[in-house]
């Protein structure tokens, strides 16, 4: 209030809204970062301490030495290595298929002109609103008819292209590929296929990688459908194995369940260390703005 007019003007130009950050703000962020990480840490604490240490007040808050034993106990209940392999194979196939089909459809929706385009885009978005439980029962019966029960095909084929992926790719291609580039290519006599290969693919490769990651993570973490489809332990995905561990050992041994959870989660956290930044950028790119 006592500031000279010049100073006041200066302050005004900077704007009240973007003033410096208070220690409280950093405190909040620190708490959230801690809360984000704590459950992972806790998984390992419980998994690596014996039953007696956990059921004690106050409980152990540091990792123990028992993890190897729990690890072997998990392997006795479910073939964990096998389920891990199953999950990686399924998730990779779906990720590649989704990126491929979504990029093609996204290209068509973003840059090609054809009758009914607007309606067909809206249709893609509208399908995202349908609750997936609605078709669950008949889809399961259909898989029965196809003889796809307990078969990876039942997980892979319905997931090779999703509305989310198509729409996401449409947004990305729309924003990242300049029309001038395509126009120039057209004038030079490039066909649609050529444009896709030589212009779209190189430009969107980083975003395609992010979509692939999202898809991979979604498949890795999917549980409801695999739980319904897969019956034999050698076909289990990681999440189904985890559910089995939980129902078989529930109330008896938290250490085993937590060891299994840790084993199912650690690879993703490790992956996240390397790709976390790109995932953050991907989430923000895909956000609905304004």
């Amino acid at each position, binding site marked *: 209030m006592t500031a000279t007019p010049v100073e006041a003007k200066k302050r005004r130009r900077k*704007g009240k*809204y973007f003033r*410096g950050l208070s220690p409280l*703000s950093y405190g*909040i962020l620190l708490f*959230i*970062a801690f*809360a*984000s990480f704590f*459950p*992972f840490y806790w*998984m390992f604490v419980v998994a690596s301490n014996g039953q007696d240490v956990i059921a004690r*007040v106050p409980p152990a808050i540091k990792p123990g030495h028992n993890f190897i034993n729990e690890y072997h106990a998990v392997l006795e209940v479910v073939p964990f290595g096998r389920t891990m392999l199953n999950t990686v194979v399924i998730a990779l196939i779906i990720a590649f298929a989704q990126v491929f*089909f979504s990029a093609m459809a996204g290209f*068509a929706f973003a840059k*090609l*002109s*054809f*009758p009914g*385009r607007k309606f067909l885009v809206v249709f893609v978005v509208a*399908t995202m*609103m349908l*609750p997936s*439980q*609605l*078709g*669950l*029962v*008949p889809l399961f019966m259909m898989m*029965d008819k196809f003889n796809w029960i307990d078969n990876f095909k039942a997980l892979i084929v*319905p997931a*090779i*292209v999703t*509305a989310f992926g*198509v729409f996401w790719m449409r947004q990305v291609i729309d924003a990242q590929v300049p029309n001038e580039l395509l126009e120039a290519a057209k004038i030079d006599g490039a*066909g*649609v296929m050529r444009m896709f290969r030589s212009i779209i693919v190189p430009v969107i490769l980083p975003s395609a990688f992010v979509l692939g990651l999202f898809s991979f993570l979604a498949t890795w973490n999917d*549980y*409801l459908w695999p739980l319904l489809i897969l019956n034999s332990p050698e076909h289990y995905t990681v999440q189904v194995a*985890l559910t089995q561990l*939980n*129902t078989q050992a*529930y109330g008896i041994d*938290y250490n085993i*369940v937590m060891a299994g*959870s*840790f084993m*199912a989660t650690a690879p*993703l*956290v490790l*992956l*996240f260390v390397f790709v*976390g*930044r790109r995932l953050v950028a991907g*989430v*923000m790119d895909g*956000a*609905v*703005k*304004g």
Partner: protein
Amino acid sequence: MTSTSAVDVDRSKRGRHQRERVKIKSDHPNAKKQKYDKAESRWAFLFISPFYVIFLIFGLAPIIFSVAVSFFNWNPLEEQQTFIGLQNFKDLVIDPIFWISVRNTFSIWFFSTIPQMFMAIGIASILRSPKLRGRVFWQTMLLLPNITSAIAIAVVFGQMFGRDFGIINILLSHINRGPVDWIENTLPSHIAIATMITWRWVGYNSLIFLASMNAISKDLYESADLDGASRFQQFRYVTLPQLKNTITFMVIVGTIGGLQVFAEPATLGGSYDGGTSNQFSTLTLYLFKQVAVNGTYGYAAAIGIGITVLVVIISAINFFITRRISGEGSK
């Protein structure tokens, strides 16, 4: 003098925006009637067809078929299925567990969506400050919970919420509260499940809010500053109205996600009952139980249709509420 130059800047900016808009319009293939390039259209249809083929077979066909199944007493073990008309729906409206599941689903949805929205907007407001240090680190930590499986998280939270040896009750005992039975009691169990969902999604939603806040023009804040608006007023009258679409989008996604809550209650209870007295049974859990445990497919299909009806009703309510709020906010 300063004021005129500000106006000039404003005008030139507006001019550029307009030009851009015009250009985009003329680029848009549907802007004017035009002849479609036949070869291009053919390629386009080829490119988009995989999605529609997959959707028709694995998305639309099952939905249509589910309506048919819901009219049958469908038993997977029998050859012939008996048509029972609306009996499944009649059973459904008087099924107490169905209504308990409806109540639980909404209660969990409320506790997981509403506080989370406030938290996410708050976190995004902190993250958008240009003076923030370590931005990438904070953003990455925020997204970390989102990559993990709901089951693993439900396992660890279930342990943390344990009655006797859970860390949360031990912490509560330090402030002379509890112990709370987070699993046997209805409301605490909903809060426990909502906590898992919030933990998993709040960072993700903060990033979405951050992205849409970053898209708000700085000019709006500058002019609000010139008008002497306080920091809170700027938030209330500039930021919040601009986030309208994001909030709507999030409520819709949150509702659809909320109706699909499954892993958390399934893991917390270790069965598909949702606790000993169904105190945290959700709609999807109940549907799943009909398929996997009871084998009553017709009834499960009827529950699926019930869920869809609820989605439609909520979306309609949501649509009207946001329309009213936005009508108020923009005027």
